[in-house]
């Protein structure tokens, strides 16, 4: 089973059309492990990007170098998945 230890979801707020275009480049490169949960669309709509731990530095560097503002929406995806599984198992026992 695929694990997501240390993988993060970044909540990205593009400031202008140019930044939206740059964000779309990440998608066009379509590295299978980096994927948009919410695609960059129109101004005022944030994008959410799942980034594996192995590429966090690179992707954050890309965003920083283009002054694209972001926050971390999910610090560790696997922690949420573990919690989700624990809750499902508990429900089954009940």
């Amino acid at each position, binding site marked *: *089973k*695929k694990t*997501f230890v240390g993988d993060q*979801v970044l*909540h990205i707020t593009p400031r202008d059309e140019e930044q939206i275009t740059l964000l779309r480049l990440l*998608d066009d490169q*379509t590295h*299978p492990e980096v*994927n*948009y*949960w*919410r*695609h960059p*669309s*129109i101004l005022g*709509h*944030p994008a*959410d990007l*799942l980034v594996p731990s192995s590429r966090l530095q690179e992707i954050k560097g890309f965003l920083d170098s283009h002054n694209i503002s972001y926050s971390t*929406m*999910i610090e560790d*995806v696997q922690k*949420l*998945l573990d*919690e*989700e599984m624990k*809750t*499902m198992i508990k*429900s*089954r026992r*009940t």
Partner: protein
Amino acid sequence: RSSTSTFDFGSYHTLDEIYDWMNTLVHDHPTLVSKVQIGQSYESRPLYVLKFSTGGSNRSAIWLDTGIHSREWITQAVGVWTANKIATGYGQDPSITAILDSMDVFIEIIANPDGFAFTHSTDRMWRKTRSINAGSHCIGVDPNRNWDAGFGGSGSSSNPCSELYRGPYAHSEGEVQAIVDFICGHGNVKAVISIHSYSQMLLFPYGYKTAPAPNHQELNELAKKAVSDLATIFGTKYTYGSIAETIYVAAGTTVDWAYKNGVKYSFTFELRDTGHYGFLLPSNQIIPTATETWPALLDIMIHVLEHPY
């Protein structure tokens, strides 16, 4: 046999558990609910639709689907809750009773069973179908870009490795073709509501172009009422509008295909949430999400009932 009264609607479930629960629902409401197999998935799993009908022949119908993007687990869970709500509400709730006394309701709770099974077994974040793409090592097609409505246009990808891969041709995916065959074969479907997550939106055609749909004003008014009634439950704020104007131009989507094929009341929901959990919405939010979605669904269904065409 398990019972609908002991089923935990506030928990996420596997494909087998949901399929088993569907049998239980049919067993508990034999004169109202039946299960129809409309096809099979790429990996040969059955595609089941729950039919809610009080009789008559080929009545006007409302179609709902959940889980076409497999990782959007809140949608399948809302589908289960909603199916149970309709089954238990008939004869008790005047709105549900009025709808089912005149119309049939079809719910496809697991529109992408291969993807859903894969999210449980291997990759929780899987979105697409599981079909093999000739000449590529990447698997799957985005079933919400695979419809014959502006197929191949903006907002979809020709790259099989993309999450937005449209597939080699429209309706290449058995999961999509099965719905097409069913709705076209039925011939009297008056509303299609396709449920997704997340970002709290209620959207309608067009997705593949920015021009307003001929029924834009009516759909917009109905969406406005629906999101307003949704917000009365827990204050959850939804935006609404055409797909193209509200998020982005997206070609080949379910609702555009339905609209293009004569289904005037064609909507897609994006359920909770914004900026917290995304596809990993905790299970303690299933029932609140389903509960608040219900009045919006009901608004659309009642509008369809009261505006025959």
